[in-house]
Each structure stands twice: as C-alpha cells, then as structure tokens.
C-alpha cells in the first residue's frame, strides 16, 4: 500500500484513542495479569479458611475490610472482563462476529458489561 503520509505515531498516552476492540484487548491483558497476582493470596486465604473455625472467621473478617472490598471489586471486574473477552475471542476464532460492525458492538458490550458487574458488586455491598 502506498501512502502519502507516514502512519501517525502518538507517544503521548493522552493522545491515543483506542477503538473499542483495542480497549477490550488491552483490558484482557491487564485483567489477566492482575488475576495472576491474586493467585498466591487466594491459595493462602483458601487454606486458612479450611484450617479451623478461627481461620474461617479470620478470612471472612479480612474480606469485610474496606481495602479487601476494593480489591474484590477489582477482582470482579477482572474476572468478568477476562471471561467475557475470552468468550468473545472464542466466538471470533470460530468465525462468529468477525465483521467490523458486530466485532465493534461485541467489544463495547464486553467493556461495559464488565464494568456493570463491578458496579453490581459495589451496589450489593451498599
């Protein structure tokens, strides 16, 4: 392809405008990395919760602190986004929704639905 101008290169993060699919893609990555970091803590809490009554109570008490509720909200968003974006990926793999407009719509759906799940979680706490 011959073009007159070189492709624009925005190194300023505030100038970059990603299309919905781009947001879905990078958020799939970010949520995956976040989920990875929660694995050792989840394993530890799981073990503690099964040790005895005291351990079980301790874990529940911790989960009810403001800090862990914030982490949990982030976890809900990450799980929802990662799962939905992953399902969208699987559907694209088998040729469903590959056209430009449906792909754009499904990306928007994933992005908003994941935020919706996190909002639902926060609303359930209130």
């Amino acid at each position, binding site marked *: 392809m011959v073009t007159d101008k070189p492709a624009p290169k925005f190194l300023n993060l505030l100038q970059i405008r990603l299309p919905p699919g781009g947001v879905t893609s990078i958020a799939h*990555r970010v949520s*995956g*990395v976040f*989920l*990875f970091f929660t*694995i*050792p803590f*989840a*394993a*530890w809490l*799981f*073990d503690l*919760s*099964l040790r*005895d*009554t005291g351990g*079980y*109570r301790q874990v529940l008490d911790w989960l009810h602190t403001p800090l862990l509720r914030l982490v949990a909200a982030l976890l809900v968003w990450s*799980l929802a986004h990662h*799962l939905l974006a*992953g*399902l969208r990926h*699987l559907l694209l*793999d088998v040729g469903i929704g590959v056209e430009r407009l449906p792909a754009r719509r499904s990306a928007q759906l994933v992005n908003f639905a994941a935020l919706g799940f996190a909002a639902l979680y926060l609303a359930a706490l209130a």
Partner: protein
Amino acid sequence: MTRAAQGLRAWLLQRFTALYLAAFLVYAVARLLLTPPAGYDQWLAWMGQPLTGVALTLFVAALALHAWVGIRDVLIDYVHAVWLRLSLMAVVALLLLGSGLWVTRALLLAAMRAAQVGA
C-alpha cells in the same frame, strides 16, 4: 516438536483450559451466591466432598496452565533481555506450582477433616 507446533499447542491449551475455567467459575459463583455456606462446618463439608476435590484440583491445574501461557506471552512481548525474561518465567512457574500444590494440599486435608467430622 517444531516451533509452529509448539505455538499451536499453547494456543489450543489456552482455549481448552479457558472453557473449563469459565464453566467451573460460573457454576461455583452461582452456587456460592444461591446457597452460601452458613459457617465453617458447611464450608468444610462442601470442600471436603470427593467431587468438589476432583473438580477443584482440575480447576487449579487448568488455571496454572492458562496463567502460564498468558503470562509467558506477556513476558515475551514486553521483556526483551533474555536473562531477565527467563528469570521472571522461573519465578512465575514457581509461584503457580507452589500455589497449585498448596490448594491441593488444603483440599486433601479438608477431605480428611470432613471425613472425621462425618464419622
């Protein structure tokens, strides 16, 4: 195995593990929300069931493989110094293996405790 076949294997592994992780997660979250355990005894009884133990151990294995493929892709994309990339991959492998064995051990102990309580 050729490099292309290795890539295909990782690609397939990521998708098969994703299906199990998604199905298990939806089931587990739904059950936790619909019938939350009333206390330690119910929680132990649930986690001590043989079927729960097998399903969760499979979940742990699938999660470790899925996270390994995903994090390796991220490291390959962003960490270009080979010594650093390999060191980080070793740390990731240790974390995943350690966490997986830890949860498996907790499940086995839970099954034993649940059996004692039941007896």
